[in-house]
């Protein structure tokens, strides 16, 4: 049996990977929601560190803003509710199911590791091809070129997913958005200081994304965070609810589809961009996507935090208070 030698590996890499694995285990094993959520948030932050190690600064920014920021806010906001008691099941059956799951999981990991150990260390052919074609894309940052030009159908479908999620969440929580209690002077100052700074940062990430790490996703996540903070601090001008917010969210998707049609008319290929106007088109569509994604994330946050009205219990209480028959 050969001893696994880690001599070629940076000690820091081993430590970060170990920490990531441990927090992942904790996040799924701990029974209490609060503790599991905290473990997951630490997991997300450590992942952002790891992304910097695999030369993916764009992903690190997005992970920090979305994984740690918006998703964290969503999960933490869900915690203020009571955790329902888990249904009583026989201990033996639970143990059996867990054991079967653990064994099947171990077998799958072993199979995956066997496959992965046979991969060559050579990069795939697609990467160099994409890097070579960047100069014909209209922007100089390779990831933005892939997202908004070479594979912009993926991005179109992604924005469609985001729009459907926002519309669905808004429909499920209609009329139950929690009104904000009067924000004290501290929260007002926070809004005045942080929200403009975040909007500025979003704008910078958006424009910088054409030539260096950044782009519509990261900018959208930061804008969404700004809208959520504005909401929590009682700024009503930017409320992410109602028809106006829906219209803003849908605009990004509609504009992207129109861009596809323009590409069809101008170049004969759906979603293709002509180098003459590719830069302008990419920056324009990225701006709309940033606003759409930001608004959609804020809508999802508000919907997830909506209050629990309209349940049978509430209706009964109200009927009793009114003195009428339920």
């Amino acid at each position, binding site marked *: 049996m050969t001893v696994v030698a880690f001599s070629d590996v940076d000690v820091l890499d081993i430590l970060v990977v170990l920490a990531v694995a441990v927090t992942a285990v904790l996040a799924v094993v701990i029974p209490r929601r609060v503790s599991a959520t905290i473990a997951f948030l630490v997991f997300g932050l450590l992942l952002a560190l790891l992304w910097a190690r695999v030369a*993916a600064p764009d992903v690190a920014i997005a992970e920090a803003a979305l994984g740690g920021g918006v998703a964290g806010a969503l999960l933490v906001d869900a915690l203020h509710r009571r955790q329902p008691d888990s249904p009583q099941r026989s201990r033996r059956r639970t143990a059996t199911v867990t054991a079967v799951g653990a064994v099947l999981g171990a077998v799958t990991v072993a199979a995956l590791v066997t496959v992965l150990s046979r991969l060559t260390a050579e990069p795939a052919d697609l990467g160099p091809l994409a890097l070579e074609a960047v100069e014909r894309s209209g922007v100089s940052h390779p990831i933005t070129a*892939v997202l908004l030009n070479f594979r912009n159908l993926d991005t179109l479908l992604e924005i469609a997913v985001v729009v459907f999620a926002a519309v669905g969440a808004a429909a499920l929580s209609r009329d139950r958005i929690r009104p904000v209690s009067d924000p004290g002077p501290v929260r007002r100052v926070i809004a005045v200081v942080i929200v403009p700074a975040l909007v500025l940062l979003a704008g910078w990430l958006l424009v910088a994304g054409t030539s260096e790490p950044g782009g519509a*996703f990261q900018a959208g996540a930061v804008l969404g965070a700004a809208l959520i903070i504005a909401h929590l601090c009682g700024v009503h001008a930017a409320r992410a609810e109602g028809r106006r917010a829906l219209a803003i969210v849908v605009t990004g998707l509609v504009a992207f589809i129109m861009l596809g049609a323009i590409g069809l008319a101008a170049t004969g290929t759906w979603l293709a961009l002509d180098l003459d106007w590719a830069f302008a088109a990419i920056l324009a569509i990225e701006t709309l996507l940033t606003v759409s994604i930001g608004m959609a994330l804020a809508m999802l946050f508000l919907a997830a935090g909506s209050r629990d009205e309209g349940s049978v219990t509430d209706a009964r209480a109200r009927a009793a208070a009114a003195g009428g028959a339920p």
Partner: protein
Amino acid sequence: MTTLQLFLYAGAFILVLGVVATMLVRDLIRRLIALNVASGGVMLLLLALADRGDGEPDPVPQALVLTGIVVMAAVTGIAIVLARRVERLDDDLEEVEP
């Protein structure tokens, strides 16, 4: 073992851990966390694969992961809304048939 292999094996472990936990855990919020952990494993696999070789990293998997992060945030949002709905219905059922 190389750095690439370390990252790939860790990615495979986290992915499978998340998928198994998603199927076994019964609490809805914890199940959602497990799904997010699984997506972290997929991202680690893809990004480690993108960073093979000495040159610039492959932008295509990195773009895929970026798309995945945004989709996962949207999925998390709507799943929390649905989980609240389900739990409220469960509370109501308990109320009606104690």
